């Protein structure tokens, strides 16, 4: 039990930044991202023996995170909000803030599964087969969701992205 406990703690602590980034890319909200990661690593603890025996622990955990995201999307937004007395966030400015916001907003308007496909494929650079495994669907389904998602994204962005990227 002690060794298992240590293995788990070491793995999770090391992967926390990557898990938080993946969750943030999926949901676009830092607080919700942390909630998603918290839920995922709790499930991971329960299933640690199976997860640690997987061919790729990272792929196993990433799939858990994506499914947690999709599952929470189905439950309604307010179930995920946190009610504490923590201070408000301070916005961080940067040169591409506007473009980033425009693209983020467009991405958030896509259906959750389509959004997950685009994030996994084009922001985390995962191959189609790995995306299909994470989403428990066929590779053909991933390709069709990708095509539909990119078309929707292009339409939502319209000229905004082109202008933002060029500026």
């Amino acid at each position, binding site marked *: 039990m002690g060794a298992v406990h240590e293995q*788990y*703690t070491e793995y*999770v*602590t090391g992967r*926390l*930044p990557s898990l*938080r*980034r993946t969750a*943030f*890319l999926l949901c676009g909200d*830092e*607080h919700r*991202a*942390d909630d998603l*990661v*918290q839920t995922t*690593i*709790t499930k*991971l*603890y*329960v299933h640690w023996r199976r997860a640690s025996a997987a061919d790729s622990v990272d792929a196993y955990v990433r799939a858990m995170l994506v499914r947690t995201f999709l599952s929470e999307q189905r439950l*309604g*937004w*307010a*179930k995920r*909000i*946190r*009610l*504490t*007395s*923590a201070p408000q*966030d301070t916005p*961080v400015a940067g040169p*591409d803030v506007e*473009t*980033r916001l*425009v*693209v*983020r907003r467009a*991405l958030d*308007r*896509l*259906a959750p*599964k*389509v959004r997950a496909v*685009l*994030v996994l*494929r*084009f*922001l985390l650079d995962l191959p189609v087969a790995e995306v299909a495994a994470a989403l428990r669907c066929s590779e053909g389904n991933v390709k069709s969701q990708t095509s*539909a*998602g*990119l078309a*929707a*994204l*292009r*339409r939502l*962005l319209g000229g905004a*992205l082109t202008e933002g*990227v060029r500026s």
Partner: protein
Amino acid sequence: MTDGHDLLAALRDAAPTTPSTVDVGRAIRVGQRRRRTRQLAGVVAVAAVTAIIAAIVPALLGRPMPPARPLGAFDLMRHELSVGSAGGFTPISYETGRYRQRATLTPVDGSARRASVTAYAAGRQSDPEGTRAPDVNGHQAFWVSGRAGVAWEWAPNAWAFAEVTGAGDDGRTLAHRVAQSVGRRTAQVQLPFEVPTLPAPYRLTGVVTPRGDQAAGALLVLDSGGTRVLLGVRRDLDRDFTTGERRTPPTATTQVAGRAAAVLDNSVTIFDPGPAVVAEADGPAPDLVALATSVRPG
């Protein structure tokens, strides 16, 4: 680089900027409790599990099991709340749903601020924990962290949330004012059209109606495998029906059932005299043309 990489390039470096609130120790503690519960459940028959959980799990957790609460649900064709103008906002649309109803408000000064009120049916939203806010119309209330929002118990065991965006430091105060404008009043939803049969795989999940202007139309909210589809009749095609935000209206490029229409990837608009018939999806959805032609304006 592919098209997808190009489109999403602006987000490639995106990452959380706030310190992590993820608690590995808590994950272990909760995970251990779940493991014990799972192990317990694995060795007894299903009927016995129910009794054992009621007797033993509270002891394992060290606190009494809260009594089961009745779960409520709304009628899709009834509004349960009235939302007034407050805090510089006025309601623009109301959406019903089985487990939650939502009003969207728009600023009266034309600014970019937005507000919404979401009310859940009894037991469909867990009790909030956090900083107490001043009561809302005599009901206990809490501030929502990280958002300019307030949660209050609008009915026994039923929570509602008022949220404001784009209002800076005044957000919470304005959200509280919006919350205070919310009252309980049931009203039947009026639809200015009929849909004789909803084809599979579409499922009705709610109705969006404009506030105070029935001539503006009404839209059914449908679900098709996770894709949200709005179906019905509407005027003012240059505005988002739910939020009132400006958008580019479609233009007629073809004909559907002998009527001028715009058929795009995820939307169909039939330009009838008066309000147009629309079927608008937020993703790929099957048979939108057939869906749109099934609408019979009243």
